[in-house]
């Protein structure tokens, strides 16, 4: 985080209890002001004021802090540094670069002075795109920097700025701190640099919000086909431990068609974060073949790191996402997990001795969650040129005991418009992604209808048909669990077989198989169409007197089994073949049956 000069006031430590400090003699302190506590200068934020007494949450370990030590206000809120150099970085919850901390301090996180978020020495090649004398207002592009091979970083005038360009730097190499333009404003002269700062708790402004009519394709069949997410949308993934939340978020991160990914590990496991940190730089981007890290920012706040950083990490990630949105990019932000974040709120609230709400969570839990999800959206940005960008939020929830009625899940699903419910019983039989198709939903389907119709005109019918057969099987299964499967006739067994095919050949998707892990929307469409076509024909054949056994013995069923591992570039061809083969084999079967009957 950036240290900014401001009115410096000194108070003193009155009390320390865990990550929570009370300071006295703090006149003029403001809510969410950044303060430095003690001789060690640990960072904290003011979270409550009473007269001249301030309650502070510390972003670092407080062991050893004594009463009477000084507390210095910086006069500024907790802010992020925005500029080239963010991409590919790994930060902690308050934007400290973890790789550089390792260089300086080794493998354990120690208290003390930390390197700035953006490297002050690195030079970037800047191409100005504005001229002297031009009028400039918030969000205008001053110039560009190629941040990574995948991301052109547009240097934006800070949203609050307005004036006339007096001077602009020539094309050349600059550090983030160098002045690249000077602006005459009504208040005087302002210097523009490659970087600027923005308070993390304040949403960045935009010009207008756009309807959610473009899907954020995820490459996951069950999501793209049944519970789609839109660009700028919000989704909650909920499931007890072991239901595959983390793997699913990682699959989404790898396969979603967003320009930029921001992953927040909020109170998560160190070893899993290590896996992300180790594997992401090796992963290839599906579209460009470049390392995925060239368009990814990781925020790692593991469960053993200070709790206040966990609370801040979510806001920091949002601000970074909004910054890239303002450049005109589609950003996907995945937070794992928002329950850990809510628990951080609860812990801080408990220390403040606030009146607890449901299950000890503070009464403002719902409004904080609402503030978080309200920062998603597809927008047209500030600035003179037309740009649209989006921030899509997917938050994982870890309900205690897998109980969906608990406050964090309850409040979240009121706010998000897509709900992916992960299910223990699916996970136990290693059916992944373990998204329960009865409990999950997407409210974006109507808004996305036009888009889907372009992929296949019968999308809606397929979706409804698939859901109907899944439902029918569920009901039959209840009957069977009472009386056994033996009483079923071929017609009902046909339903069972269709659902088995849907589950095994379509819904089941491996996150590790090189081909299966990413399923393009066209392939998803045709796979679903073929399976339902088989069901349709099977039902018809059975109605006409063919035995189900004969239908299931058709060799085309084998082809359906293997569809998921057919490479997408070959799939169009393969799907045509399967479709024809299906027609031929069923025709043959019906002919044989007719013959048998007439004979």
């Amino acid at each position, binding site marked *: 985080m950036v240290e900014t000069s401001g009115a410096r006031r000194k108070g003193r430590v009155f009390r*320390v209890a865990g990550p929570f400090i009370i300071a006295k003699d703090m006149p003029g302190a403001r809510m969410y002001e950044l303060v430095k506590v003690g001789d060690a200068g640990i960072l904290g934020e003011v979270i409550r004021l009473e007269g001249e007494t301030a309650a502070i949450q510390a972003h670092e370990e407080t062991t050893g802090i004594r009463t009477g030590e000084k507390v210095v206000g910086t006069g500024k809120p907790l802010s992020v540094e925005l500029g080239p150099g963010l991409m590919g970085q790994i930060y902690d919850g308050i934007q400290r670069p973890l790789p550089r901390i390792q260089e300086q301090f080794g493998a*354990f*996180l120690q208290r003390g002075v930390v390197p700035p978020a953006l490297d002050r020495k690195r030079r970037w090649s800047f191409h100005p795109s504005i001229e002297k004398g031009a009028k400039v207002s918030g969000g205008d592009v001053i110039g560009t920097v190629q941040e990574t091979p995948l991301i052109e970083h547009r240097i934006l005038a800070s949203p609050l700025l307005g004036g006339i360009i007096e001077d602009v730097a020539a094309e050349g190499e600059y550090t983030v701190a160098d002045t690249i333009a000077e602006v005459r404003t009504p208040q005087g002269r302002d210097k523009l640099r490659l970087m600027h700062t923005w308070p993390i708790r304040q949403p960045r402004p935009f010009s207008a919000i756009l309807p959610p009519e473009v899907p954020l394709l995820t490459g996951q069949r069950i999501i793209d086909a049944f519970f789609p997410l839109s660009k700028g949308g919000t989704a909650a993934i909920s499931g007890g*431990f072991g239901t595959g939340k983390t793997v699913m978020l990682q699959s989404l991160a790898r396969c979603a068609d967003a320009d930029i990914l921001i992953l927040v590990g909020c109170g998560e496991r160190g*070893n899993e974060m*290590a896996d992300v940190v180790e594997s992401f730089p090796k992963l290839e981007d599906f579209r460009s073949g470049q390392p995925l890290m060239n368009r990814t920012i990781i925020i790692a706040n593991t*469960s053993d790191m200070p709790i206040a950083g966990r609370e801040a990490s979510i806001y920091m990630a949002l601000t970074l996402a909004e910054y890239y949105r303002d450049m005109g990019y589609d950003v996907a932000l995945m937070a794992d997990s928002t329950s850990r974040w809510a628990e951080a709120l609860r812990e801080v609230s408990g220390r403040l001795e606030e009146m607890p709400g449901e299950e000890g969570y503070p009464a403002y839990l719902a409004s904080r969650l609402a503030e978080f999800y309200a920062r998603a959206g597809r927008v047209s940005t500030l600035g003179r040129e037309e740009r649209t960008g989006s921030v899509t939020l997917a938050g994982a929830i870890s309900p*205690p005991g897998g109980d969906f009625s608990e406050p964090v899940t309850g409040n979240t699903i009121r706010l998000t418009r897509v709900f992916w419910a992960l299910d223990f019983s699916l996970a136990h039989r*290693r059916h992944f992604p373990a998204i329960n198709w009865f409990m999950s939903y997407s409210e974006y389907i109507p808004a996305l209808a036009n888009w889907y119709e372009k992929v296949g005109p019968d999308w809606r019918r397929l979706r409804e048909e698939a859901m109907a057969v899944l439902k029918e099987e569920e009901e039959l299964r209840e009957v069977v*669990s009472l009386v056994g499967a033996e009483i079923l006739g071929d017609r009902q067994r046909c339903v069972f077989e269709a659902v088995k095919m849907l589950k095994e050949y379509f819904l089941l998707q491996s996150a590790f198989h090189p081909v299966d892990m990413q399923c393009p929307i066209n392939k998803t469409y045709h796979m679903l169409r073929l399976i339902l076509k088989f069901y349709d024909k099977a039902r018809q054949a059975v109605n006409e007197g063919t035995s189900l056994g004969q239908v299931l013995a058709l060799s085309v069923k084998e082809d359906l089994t293997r569809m998921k591992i057919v490479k997408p570039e070959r799939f169009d061809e393969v799907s045509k073949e399967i479709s024809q083969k299906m027609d031929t084999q069923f025709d043959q079967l019906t002919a044989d049956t007719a013959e048998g009957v007439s004979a």
Partner: protein
Amino acid sequence: MSSATQASRTYSTVREVLGPLLFVEAVRGVGYGELVEVTTPQGEERTGQVIDVSEGITIVQVFEGTSGLDTTKTTVRFTGDTVKLPVSVDILGRVFTGAGKPADGGPNIIPEDYWDIHGLPMNPYSRAHPTDFIQTGISVIDGMNPLVRGQKLPLFSGSGLPHKLLASQIVRQARVRGEEEAFTIVFAAMGITTEEARFFRDDFTSMGVLGRVAMFINLAEHPVIERILTPRIALTAAEFLAFEQGMHVLAILIDMTNYCEALREISAARMEIPGRRGYPGYMYTDLASIYERAGRIQGKKGSITLMPILTMPDDDLTHPIPDLTGYITEGQMILDRKMHKTGLYPPIDPLPSLSRLMDKGIGSGKTREDHKQLSDQLYYAYAEGKVIRETALVSGEAALTSNDRLYLKFADRFEKEFISQGANENRDIEGTLDLGWELLSALPESEFSRIDPDIIRKYHPRYRGGNEGDRIVG
């Protein structure tokens, strides 16, 4: 405040004694987390730690308990230091109290260094992801939920279930394949009975591994608040052995339920607002500060593999202790009472059990290329078999289809042959996987939707049968 003299840091201003806590008045210049020496009116020395400082009241938790303390004669000395453990390789082969003092009649440790028992959070960027498969020789673990070095994998047990026997079998058999070096064991006991402590000690002795074990024992009759220290002390020792001495440490913490009870007791004494079932709202963070000390560090040889054992109150998986533990650890092994009652050992139910790090530790070059897909298929088949078993219970086996009957038979054999094994039986991973194939081969091949056709052709007994026949002839 370093200029403060010894005398000025000694106070006899105890205002209140409440549960395990002392409330001391008018204390100046004391740091949060500081180590405290408490002298009872009888002259007995105890230790404590500052858990809240303010200009008004400073709160000290006393590890040995507060019985006998008063508000007039008790004195409190603030040491200006945090709680530290003397570390040395000499701790191996020794037994300590839950507070880290020698308990075997042996001499004090001559320390190489003093380490803060709270440790520091590991930089997630510096961690190395665990990838070395540990062969425990137990099929249901190795085949279905393999453990890797640097993982934290708890045993969720219940009272009366054989978690001790299982833990001891794991200690005895666990090896990283291709490496001779056995694990160094750090054993921390919190609130277990003398009987249980003796079981482990005798067991380590009979295995001949006592020289590689450091034991930290807080028994049921020992001070409750000491349990707050025990896992931290043990893990500090583990960190020293792993990251300073390059050893591979297997740390066993038993029983975390007792630890959490102690945490709740302190929280209640502080009159904090309770979270679920009276446990403090910060229990997740507190448990994380213990469990997250497992792992590997890039560029360092050693590792800490952590196996906390906890007894679920009332076998309830959603109780806050197993629940929060499960959200921090990388999976869990669940001991099932029903399986135990039918005489199965080890009674690990593979369905709700999970090892989150298995994918990186298995496969070709680690175990065998078919491992992942085979285990997925076994999972599916066993889950299916169990559902069918329920149906058969209600409507009788006659109501099952022929395919259903195959699954039912599979589930029975899977339990009797794959899960079940002797407490001294050590199966290698190839044996475990081949056994899995053998059981699966009773099902029609068209059911194997989780296995690639190439893998089926390579490992399915039907295709390998020819080779075996050759061998018999040859």
